[in-house]
Every structure is written in C-alpha cells, then in structure tokens.
C-alpha cells in the first residue's frame, strides 16, 4: 500500500516538475490525485507543416497550464498525435490517430484537426464514439453546413441518431472568400481578377466562395478561373499571361503553401505583374509562403478565419503571459489562441461533468457528458471573444482578418508574433501584418 502511494506521489511530483520545467502553472502545484484525464490533440506537426501544428499545440498546453494542470482533483494531460506525413497533412494518418485516441482510456475530448480534409475523414470515426472534437482552424463549411457547393454533406459524416460531436472556434471559408472579395473590390479597387485553385477540397471551396462574392461586387465577367495540379505544375507563366490578357489586375489563389500556392507569385515579376495584389486564404499565411514568393512577397495578402488575438485589446495580457512561458521564436502562431480557447472550452466542460458527479472511469458516459456540455456552450468568454455553439457546431463569433506582407523592423520580426520568412533567409524581414477585420457575426 505504502509503496503504491509513494509511486503515485512520485508521478504527481514528476508531473509538477515537468510543468515547472515548461515554465508553467499559474495555479501551481495543484496536480490532481484522482487520476489522469487527457485532452487528445491531432495536428500536423512535422516537416513543412510543423509551422502550422506546433504553435497550435502550444495553445492547448497553455490552456492546461492555465488551469493549473488539473481539474477537480484530476490531473490534466495532453495526448498529442502528429497527422503529417512527408511534411503535409494526411487524412489517413489522422484517422489512425483518432482511432488511437478513442482507444486511449484517458482521452475524454480532443482539439483538432488542423486541416479540413483531415476533419472530413475523422468525424465518421469520432462521432459514434461521442468523442468531442473542437477544431481550432477547420474552415471548410461543408463539415457543418450543407451548402450547394459542398462535394460532401455534414450528415453523411455523422452516424444517424448520434448527436453532433464536432465543433469549431473559427469562422468558415464561405466567409473567408467573401471577406477577401470585399477587400479586393472595395479597399484595393480591383475590377477584374484571376482566380486560381490547386484542385483540393480546401482550395476549390475557398476559391468558389471568393469568386461568387467578387462577381456579386464587380458584376458578371469580372473573373477568370483556372486550376493547376500541384504535382505536375512548376511553371505558371502561361496561366498568369492568360489572366493578364483577360485584363485582371490581381490574383486570388485558393490553396495552401504545401500545394505550391505561393510559387506562382514568384514567377509574376518576370512577367511585369509583380506589383499585382496576390490574395488568398489562411493556407498562404505562412512563412513558407513568404519564402516561396521570393522577390515578389510584398503584395501578398491573406485572410484568416478568426480574430487576430494581437488586435484584441483584452487578449493582450493572455498573449504576453503565453510568451513568458513559450519563449521560442516560432512558439506562437495564427491559431495558438484559437487552440487555447478550444482547450479551455473542453476543460470547462470536463469540470462541469466532474462536478455533476460523472466518473471518467466510465469512459463512454463521461465522453458523452463532456460532449453534451461542449454543445451547450453559451457565452463562453474566451481570449478571442464570446463563443456560443449552434446546433451544427459552428461558433457565433464569425470574424475574418486580413493580413498583408510588409517589410518589418528587426524588433517586430524578433518579437515573434508575426508570420515572416525564415530567419536568416532573404525574406526574413517580410511578414504578414494585420490590415483589417470583417465581422459577419454582428
């Protein structure tokens, strides 16, 4: 008996040491003693995708340390899984990861995934298991809304009769595209535009949404659309010339940097159109994009579904606390605070379930209780705003932010809150900086 207790104590002490070593724990040594409850995480965390996943993972870790590393006497842990294969998100790997998380009897809810295509593959697995998923960044509307443009339908991803287990704290692409269309037409004064996509679910979805709104703003015949296959395309000049003789004065790209969405930009200078605005969604708001755009990085603008924590006065103290704990140059990213809010909502739901006397050892009941509590989230005050989930799992906070690449001072670059070209590279001082935000929720 005695040795067992000592063992337990050692485990708790070890956790406390780890938490302190991570710089953590505002709540201090409140480590639990009833057992461990874990929040699963599934994000792309290696290779080129690491710049997306790792800062987001930090948001979850920070939420746990903010909660003091425990909830109602239970130790909180992270069960982290990487869904990147070869540097790019991989839906099959994601399915493997969530299966693993479902089979892990400490995991009661999860944060993730990062990419919509992974979410599409994972929901059918997590839904029958009642495992709550809150995505910090999935912006494809079809995961929750059955729009006419959807190539798949939310109800097909879920088992009939099983309540919804999928939520997100960000706005959706059907708003990201329109926000950029309004920005292009009203703010930049663009009358004709070339729209390009890279033949993925994400890319086509966001480009379609952009195109529809731009046509509404600028009228019929105001865009020319084309697609490229990222596997076989390395030269975009003929496509770009096509846009040019169409009379376009800007380009919108629906895509992500790992599908080469920023490489066409690098080829624009030689065609004399390097000064055109090059617009896109959150898939190009990355440091890889700034590097891929090479000498033409200035003039690239991107939207992010979600508010920029750095532009919200009430978020400032949380971010500066975060940075005291996570001091690396690349520890903070566009979705760190989304993940922090997502994890905080789950922790609140776990606490509510525990306080209602639910037993985490009865795994299925407990997961369902957490899920029901998350679904009932109403007026949750997070860092990014107030979250109320609707029946589909979408948030009431529908904020889209626009960022543009600018040349920044060394001090702002080294502060680490901007997405810049790789340190030491030729574009190290070119960064995405906040320009404007649109609120569709109001």
């Amino acid at each position, binding site marked *: 008996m005695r040795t067992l207790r000592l063992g337990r104590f050692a485990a708790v002490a070890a956790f406390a040491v780890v938490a302190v070593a991570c710089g953590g724990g505002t709540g201090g040594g409140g480590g639990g003693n009833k057992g461990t409850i874990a929040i699963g995480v599934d994000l792309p965390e290696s*290779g*080129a995708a690491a710049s997306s996943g790792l800062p987001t993972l930090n948001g979850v870790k920070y939420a746990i340390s903010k909660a003091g590393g425990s909830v109602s006497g239970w130790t909180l842990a992270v069960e982290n899984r990487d869904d990147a294969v*070869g*540097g*790019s998100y991989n839906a099959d790997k994601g399915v493997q990861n969530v299966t693993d998380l479902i089979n892990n009897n400490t995991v009661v809810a999860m944060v993730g995934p990062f990419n919509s295509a992974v979410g599409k593959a994972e929901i059918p697995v997590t839904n029958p298991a009642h495992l709550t998923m809150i995505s910090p960044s999935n912006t494809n509307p079809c995961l929750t809304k059955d729009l006419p443009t959807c190539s798949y339908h939310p109800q097909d991803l879920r088992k009939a009769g099983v309540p919804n287990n999928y939520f997100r704290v960000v706005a959706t692409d059907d708003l990201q595209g329109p926000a950029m269309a309004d920005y292009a037409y009203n703010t930049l004064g663009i009358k*004709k535009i070339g729209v390009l996509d890279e*033949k993925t679910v994400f890319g086509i979805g966001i480009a379609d949404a952009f195109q529809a709104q731009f046509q509404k703003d600028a009228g019929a015949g105001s865009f020319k659309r*084309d*697609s*490229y*296959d990222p*596997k*076989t*395309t*390395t*030269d975009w*000049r*003929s*496509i770009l*010339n*096509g846009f*040019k*003789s*169409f*009379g*376009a004065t800007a380009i919108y790209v629906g895509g992500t940097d*790992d599908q*080469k969405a920023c*490489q066409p930009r*690098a*080829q624009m200078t*030689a*065609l*004399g*159109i390097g000064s055109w605005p090059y617009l896109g969604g959150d898939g190009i708001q990355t440091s*890889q994009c700034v*590097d*891929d755009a*090479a*000498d033409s990085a200035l003039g690239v603008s991107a939207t992010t579904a979600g508010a920029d924590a750095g532009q919200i006065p009430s978020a400032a103290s949380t971010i500066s606390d975060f940075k005291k704990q996570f001091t690396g140059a690349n520890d903070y990213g566009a979705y760190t605070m989304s993940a922090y809010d997502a994890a905080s909502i789950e922790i609140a739901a776990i606490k509510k379930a525990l306080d209602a006397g639910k037993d985490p050892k009865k795994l299925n009941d407990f997961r369902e209780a957490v899920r029901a509590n998350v679904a009932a989230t109403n007026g949750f005050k997070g860092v990014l705003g107030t979250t109320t989930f609707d029946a589909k799992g979408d948030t009431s906070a529908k904020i889209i932010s626009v960022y543009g690449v600018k040349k920044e001072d060394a001090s702002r670059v080294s502060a680490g809150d901007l997405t810049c070209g790789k340190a030491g*590279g*030729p574009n190290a001082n070119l960064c995405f900086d906040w320009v404007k935000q649109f609120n569709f929720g109001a």
Partner: protein
Amino acid sequence: MSGLLAILWVIYLGAEDPAGLIATLVIGITDGAMFALVALGYTMVYGIIELINFAHGDVFTLGGFLGLPLLGLFGITSGTKFAWVYVPILVFVFVLVMGLNGLVNITIERVAYRPLRNAPRLAPLITAIGMSFILEGAMYLWRGPVSLRFPNLLPDTVASRFTSPAGHFGLNSGSTAAPLIDIGVKDVAVVISTVVLVILLSVFINRTKLGKAMRATAQDRDAAQLMGIDINRTISATFFIGAALAGAGGMIWALYFNSIRFDLGFTTGLIAFTAAVLGGIGNIEGAALGGLLIGIIRALNERYLSASWSDVVIFGILIMVLVFRPTGLLGMRVPEK
C-alpha cells in the same frame, strides 16, 4: 488531320494576338528544352538495355540538390543575384554536378540493374522504381519537404520585349499595352545550352568510337561482346552520360525557376518519359522533339484553354500518337529481335 486543325488554331491565335502567342511559345520552348534534357537520359538507357530507368527523374532532381551546397562552398546563397564573377564558378559547379550525378547513376546501374541484366524484364523495372523512391527519400531526409530557394544566377537582362496590342477581332479587348513577356537572356541561355548538349550528344553517338560501341551494344549485345566490345563499360558510359545530362537539366531547372523540391523528379520524369515515347523511344532527336512539343502544348493549353486539363491533354495526345504511330513521331531505334 487533328494536327492540321491544331496548327490552324495556333495561326489564328497568332493573328489575334501575336505577342501573346510568342510569349506562350517562348514559355513552352524553355520548359520543353528542360523536359528534353531529361528525356534524353530515358531514351539512351532504353535504347541500349531496354530498361525504363524510373530513377532517372530523381537523378535529375539530384543535380539541383547537389548544385546548391556546391554553390554554397563559393559563398553563393539563395539570395545571391547574377554577377559576372559567378560565371566561372557556375561553369565549374555545372561540370562537377554532371560528374557526380554520372557517378551516382553508374553506381545505381552497378548495384540495381547489372545483376538483373539477364533476369526477366520486369525485375529491373521494379528495382528502377525502388531506386526512384530511395533517391527521393534520401533527398527528403537530406533537405526536408520544403521548396529550396535557388540563387538567381542567370541574368535578368531582357533580350527582346513583346507588348500586346488591342485584339484584332475584339476577343482580347482586355489586354493592355504592358509587356506580355520579356524574352530574357535566361530563356535564351536555357534553350542554347539544351541545343548544344543535344548536338554534342548526337555527334558523340554517331562519330566517336564509344558512341559506335553504344550503337553496337544496342543493336545486339551478344554480337557486340563477341566483337570485343566491353559491354559493361559501354553501358556504364551510357548511364554516366544520361545522368550528366540530367544533372545539367536539374541545375538549369533550379537556376531558371529558383526553386527545387525533393519530389520534383517524379512527375517531371514522367513527363520527360512521355516526351521520349512521343518522339520515338531510343531516338535522341525524337526525345528532344518530344520534350519541345510537350512544353509547347502545355503552354498553349494553359494560356488559351485551361490548366485544369493540362495532363489530360498531354496524355490524350500521347495515346493518340501511340495508337496511330506506335513507334513515336520519329520512329523507335531499338534492336530488332
């Protein structure tokens, strides 16, 4: 017939917007020249041992991957721009990369193909696919999954500028007087270096003793051996030359687009292989012609139709050519059995 229609269409496009067509052709020819350099390697190896060397596309990528650190040794980093002092360094690195690439390919042949020379043909085909994955994996482990930025060492000087007038038939009334394309020294350099390499190769194969040995080996390996030709050495030389050309191709590609990624060779290799088949596999001039044609067709399609269809169009043409002319445009040169 369909070829005639295509030519008429191109003439119409030229009348409509000459500068736009020239721009497209220039892009097509430069891309095609690079495909051609890769296609030569496929065609040479197939010609001599009837092996589709699937690793060849990755040997091509390896050229760029080797070039980057070698340039780094001379203090040239990804942000470096063209200057005359770099020209001798560039030439030196080119030679070095071609040599290193050749040695890698000889090793591949020695390890993965030679022991299987008398095995059923499927066996070396599988080892070739295996070598392709191994090379790709090695480059991935070496430099990671991201696109590497290559220094812009070719001059950005404009050789000739084309501007687009208003459309004659009002079809492209949106076009402005801004230049549609500047034919750069860069483009000229790419095309000239390809042409020079193709001519050198052709002369080498048709005029030199080793070239004669290659032709003899291709025609009848056993008879060639009986005549005292060292076929192992001849085949090694073929792999060396093919890889050296691919290495040069990889360097030219990376210098031209200033960007290279570990998986570039997989699809570029596929397109180049298609070019070799289109021109008539085993045929040097055919490979060069096939590469140029694919580059031009691709550019025309992307400019005037839709890039969504690029691969459909190219492979559709390939199927047409093979159905109606199985030996390719210029005819195969493979040993008769």
